[in-house]
């Protein structure tokens, strides 16, 4: 059974991608319908996988050679992420029916979305390291194609290529790690690797561990690779919700969680993971406090929340990180789609031009506020539960300085979330923008996600059991809901965090009276607006490469005599190497 559902949940979206592309852009209605049908079917197939979760490979294609067996395992981590990818994917597709109405080149849009959904499912279900890399790159390819969907806009093209190049550079780390494993074990099977990691030479294991960390940081837009995600906001908003909030950016967290048992004993690795997560959470939260573009605020907050998940893994809280991933996928998809409804209605992303939109779009306001409360970590929404679990894991398993920073970031999160909600929906109208409330298909997606945000925390018990039963190497302690609640409500971390969140809220409330403090922090906010110099570093690398390429072109003089000189020079060099090298 599991084998069928695995093949269906990868195959259905890919078949759908082909069909939508095949139908052609002359039939937009049919394209919308096909995309919705295939994505919903994929969601159903992936959900059907959950009761079939197991620890053994369910599908094996013996490819042989240096490629190994292409295997897929429906274990807890995999089926859960596959379900998230397909369900959020189908909601994003449903949302797109309204959002992308009347757009050109719909075939390319839906084909890429469906191709992405299938690849994301493949990425989390495969147990072959080569295929992990393959699907990893396919998701990057789709992300690039969709960010630059509006190819006529140079900003979109630039954002897409930036995302592609940065994740690819990080991907080299995954490549190196996977190849190191293969060159020592002769197999790509990742469970074999996790079980036998201790038998690798220490240096090799460490190289693989840090290679995977680099790859994860690049994919999940973590420090120091975080710069691509804000620029990826040029993508159509459903894409931002699906790829850049709910699924693809989680791949890095998934990778770290998946290989945590193999790498946890590598000296310095867990500390490095904690630092990466902490810095990402902190820097991105600061940037979110000063950003004025609605989608960028959400992008920064995604980086920040992904930082929480990475931090939790570094502190040993694999379960907490995955649960936060789950909550975050739901509430951040909700926030992005609601923001999309706003942007679709008013035609701008600049929050300075919004304000008082709540009256015109009550439904969107309602769901956005639900998402925002979850993001801020207020009880009893799903974000509260998972964030508290993360902080508790951090207090127990991580260094105390990191915990302090993360609690502080929780306050910042509350601050920027309320700033965002206020600027968009409340206060006074700052321009003559007129919004209209969400359309039907949009309402369906938003409503379901809002419902999820209110309720998914109830699943903490079965979720823990799923991971516990199918991932023996991870030693996950599953507790039923009641005990989790008891644990959270008796833990001091919860009250500290809630207090700080309250302070964050208060700061926004009393922002006028804190003007003095604000002006004292101008330097910081300017640095945050300049993304702390990381953009400058990126630009520097790009222009250095371009300049050296331009400089090298001088060597192609086109002069025949010079070309012949090249031949003779080559001969002299080769003879010199042979004469002195032997």
């Amino acid at each position, binding site marked *: 059974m599991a084998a069928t559902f695995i093949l269906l949940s990868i195959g259905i979206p890919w078949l759908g991608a082909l069909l939508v592309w095949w139908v052609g852009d002359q039939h937009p209605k049919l394209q919308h319908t096909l995309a919705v049908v295939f994505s919903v079917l994929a969601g159903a197939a992936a959900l059907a996988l959950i009761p079939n979760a197991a620890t053994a490979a369910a599908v094996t294609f013996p490819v042989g050679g240096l490629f190994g067996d292409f295997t897929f395992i429906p274990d807890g981590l995999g089926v859960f992420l596959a379900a998230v990818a397909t369900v959020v994917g189908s909601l994003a597709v449903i949302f797109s029916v309204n959002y992308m109405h009347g757009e050109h080149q719909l075939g390319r849009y839906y084909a890429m979305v469906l191709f992405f959904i299938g690849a994301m499912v493949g990425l989390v279900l495969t147990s072959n390291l080569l295929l992990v890399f393959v699907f990893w790159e396919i998701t990057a390819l789709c992300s690039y194609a969709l960010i630059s969907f509006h190819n006529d806009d140079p900003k979109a093209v630039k954002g897409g290529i930036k995302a592609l190049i940065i994740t690819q550079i990080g991907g080299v780390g995954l490549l190196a790690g996977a190849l190191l494993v293969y060159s020592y074990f002769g197999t790509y099977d990742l469970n074999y690797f996790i079980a036998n990691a201790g038998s690798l030479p220490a240096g090799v294991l460490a190289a693989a561990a840090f290679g995977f960390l680099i790859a994860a940081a690049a994919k999940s837009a973590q420090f120091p690779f975080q710069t691509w995600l804000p620029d990826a906001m040029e993508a159509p908003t459903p894409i931002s919700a699906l790829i850049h909030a709910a699924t693809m950016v989680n791949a890095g967290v998934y990778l770290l969680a998946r290989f945590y048992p193999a790498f946890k004993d590598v000296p310095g690795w867990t500390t490095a993971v904690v630092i990466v997560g902490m810095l990402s959470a902190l820097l991105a939260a600061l940037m979110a406090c000063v950003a004025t573009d609605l989608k960028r605020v959400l992008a920064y907050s995604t980086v920040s929340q992904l930082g929480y998940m990475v931090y939790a893994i570094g502190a040993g809280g694999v379960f907490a990180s995955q649960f936060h991933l789950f909550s975050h996928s739901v509430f951040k998809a909700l926030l992005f789609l609601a923001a999309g409804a706003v942007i679709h209605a008013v035609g701008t992303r600049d929050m300075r031009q919004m304000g008082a939109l709540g009256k015109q779009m009550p439904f969107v306001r309602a769901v956005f506020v639900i998402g925002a409360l979850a993001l801020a970590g207020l009880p009893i929404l799903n974000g509260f539960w998972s964030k508290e679990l993360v902080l508790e894991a951090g207090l127990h398993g991580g260094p105390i300085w990191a915990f302090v920073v993360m609690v502080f970031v929780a306050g910042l999160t509350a601050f920027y979330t309320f700033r965002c909600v206020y600027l968009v929906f409340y206060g006074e109208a700052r321009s003559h923008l007129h919004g209209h409330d969400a359309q039907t298909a949009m309402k369906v997606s938003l409503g379901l996600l809002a419902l999820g945000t209110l309720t998914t925390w109830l699943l903490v018990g079965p979720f823990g059991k799923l991971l516990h039963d199918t991932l023996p190497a991870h030693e996950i302690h599953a507790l039923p809901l009641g005990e989790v609640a008891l644990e959270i409500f008796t833990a001091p971390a919860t009250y500290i965090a809630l207090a700080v969140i309250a302070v964050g809220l208060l700061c926004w409330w009393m922002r006028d009276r804190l003007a003095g403090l604000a002006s004292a922090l101008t330097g910081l906010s300017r640095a945050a607006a300049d993304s702390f110099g990381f953009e400058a570093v990126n630009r520097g690398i790009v222009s250095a490469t371009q300049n050296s390429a331009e400089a090298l*072109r001088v060597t192609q003089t*086109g*002069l025949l005599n010079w070309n012949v000189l090249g031949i003779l020079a080559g001969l002299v060099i080769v003879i010199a190497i042979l004469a002195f090298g032997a």
Partner: protein
Amino acid sequence: MNLSPSMLAVIAILGLLGVGFYALLASRNLIKVIVGLQILVKGSMLAFVLAGRLVGNVTLGQSLALTVIVVDTIVAVIGLAISVQIRRHFGTLDVKALTTLRR
């Protein structure tokens, strides 16, 4: 000093190579460049004849040299034919004029 025929041949080969490569490196005129190529090939033909003599297989060395002549003549003819067209289209045989394709 008494030079053996083989030494003389080696010196001649090196001389021909030197002249040929000098022509390729320093000459601005296409015809001179092609003549330089011809001189280079003559050097390698001499090398074959010499090698045949050294290993005691003179006929093989000579037949190789003959084959080289045939092939090389074809190359030279094509080279000159292209040069004629170049003269017609560029109005010059100067190598420096032939730098429209670069960078």
